[in-house]
């Protein structure tokens, strides 16, 4: 059983590598054959070289660390607010009904239009980006926590109450673990949103960060720079996501 699992995992990894190499090879080949213009789509080897240049110059780490800092702050603050509100509203149906239209309205606002406002309110530094990330993360976390708490099985709740649980113990032993499943399934999405918020914020007005790098490259029609920036972002998000998956496997080991 375990061997079969390991075997299929390797098979998947193998084919993932094949797909990746195929796309890169096709891209590189089409450009070499002059079927695609590198001015518009750049070239894989140029992109790799550019990332190497950034690494050696040290600018990559500086920009990356700024973007990561904004993302992490946005994720943590957004998650804390989202989970807090999710719990409060799930436990208080009256409050949930009163706030319902406002939450829908706020969630319907395209976040990009908020960016200039945040720049005005919080300045060009990291906090306007953090704020943007928070507005994205909050709603994902909020809806999932709300659903997770509401979804908690009534039998489990009745059972621990009969066993003598107080309201607080009920939250701790039943509602939080029950909501955790939902919260974790939304953590991957939230993580992506946090990075999107940070990068879009940087893109619209900043002096540092990967969004700034991409925006500068676009300003000079430097497609290699744009792709290099996107590649770095993609790899970093993939790595963090793998870390979250491990954490999730450990926390939800009872499944």
């Amino acid at each position, binding site marked *: 059983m375990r061997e079969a699992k390991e075997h299929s995992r390797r098979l998947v990894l193998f084919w993932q590598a094949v797909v990746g190499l195929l796309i890169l090879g096709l891209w590189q080949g089409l450009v070499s054959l002059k079927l695609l213009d590198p001015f518009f789509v750049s070239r894989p080897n140029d992109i790799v070289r550019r990332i190497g240049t950034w690494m050696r110059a040290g600018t990559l780490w500086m920009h990356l660390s700024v973007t990561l800092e904004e993302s992490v702050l946005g994720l943590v603050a957004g998650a804390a607010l989202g989970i807090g509100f999710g719990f409060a509203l799930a436990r208080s149906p009256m409050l949930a009904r009163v706030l319902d239209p406002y939450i829908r309205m706020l969630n319907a606002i395209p976040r990009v239009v908020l960016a200039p406002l945040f720049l005005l309110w919080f300045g060009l530094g990291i906090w306007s980006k953090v704020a943007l990330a928070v507005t994205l993360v909050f709603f994902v976390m909020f809806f999932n926590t709300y659903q997770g708490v509401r979804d908690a099985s009534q*039998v*489990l709740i*009745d*059972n*621990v109450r*009969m066993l003598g649980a*107080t309201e607080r113990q009920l939250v701790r*032993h*039943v509602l939080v673990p029950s909501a955790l499943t939902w919260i974790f399934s939304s953590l991957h999405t939230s993580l992506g949103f946090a990075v999107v918020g940070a990068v879009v914020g940087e893109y619209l007005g900043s002096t540092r960060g990967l969004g700034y790098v991409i925006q500068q490259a676009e300003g000079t029609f430097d497609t290699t720079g744009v792709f290099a920036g996107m590649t770095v972002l993609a790899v970093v998000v993939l790595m963090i996501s793998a870390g979250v998956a491990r954490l999730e496997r450990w926390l939800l080991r*009872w499944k």
Partner: protein
Amino acid sequence: MIELQLDRVSRDFDLPGGGTYRVLEDISFDVETGAFVAIVGPSGCGKSTLLNVAAGLLSPTSGQVQSGGTPLAGLNRRATYLFQQDALLPWKSVRDNVALGLTLAGAPRAEAAARAAEWLGRVGLSPFAAHYPAQLSGGMRKRVAMAQHWIIDRSLMLMDEPFSALDVHTRQRMETELLALWEGADAAAATTPATAGERKTVLFVTHDLEEAIALADEVVVLSAGPASRIVARHRVTLDRPRDVMDLRTMPAFVDLYGAVWSVLRAEVRKSQQSPGGRHA
């Protein structure tokens, strides 16, 4: 002494389209301390509602419940409740599930762990202490649930068709184990001197008449819903300790079964004709 007393208890539920649906009508009966009382009735007759009222999870629309001689307000703190569905916390290990009631009451970790280990031994699950409920079979989960409720040592045990989801053989084994626990409660309770020597009172809901007679001292028959009433009460005078496996062929058992079934059969027929019969 009377452990539980229901006095003219009725319970209505609101219907989604307005109006009410009467589930229980004018139910009165006493359960003596240490007695094992089974409640049978056709499906939809409000057996679970009756237990929920006794547990304090539902309040009666009219009438009164007395628990241990005092009127019940809120949850019944003298009772535990073994549910029909799986109610173990899936994210806690078997050991932590069994110890849960003690942990909630603020018992020291070491003491809770020691008593949980003792109870796991009693239900034969010591090797599975570190497992999670999802890794156990249905019968094993039921045993964990029994230990989880028995460990907190309340005087009244409410059981809602606890074995109905199990296959016939597992079910007979569980019935045997339940009786052994209940009959041997003197020995089991020895660790807690306050209640030592006292048998627990059991209120056991089932739709299976054989199970009811095999286990109980008294079988209460509810009428078909809506507005279920008590239609009959039968004393079960079979000797204890009983062997659940052999009991079913004994003449005394067969006679009693025939007598109760003639009452129950009429109610089952009615429930199949009335539209309320499918109401859970």
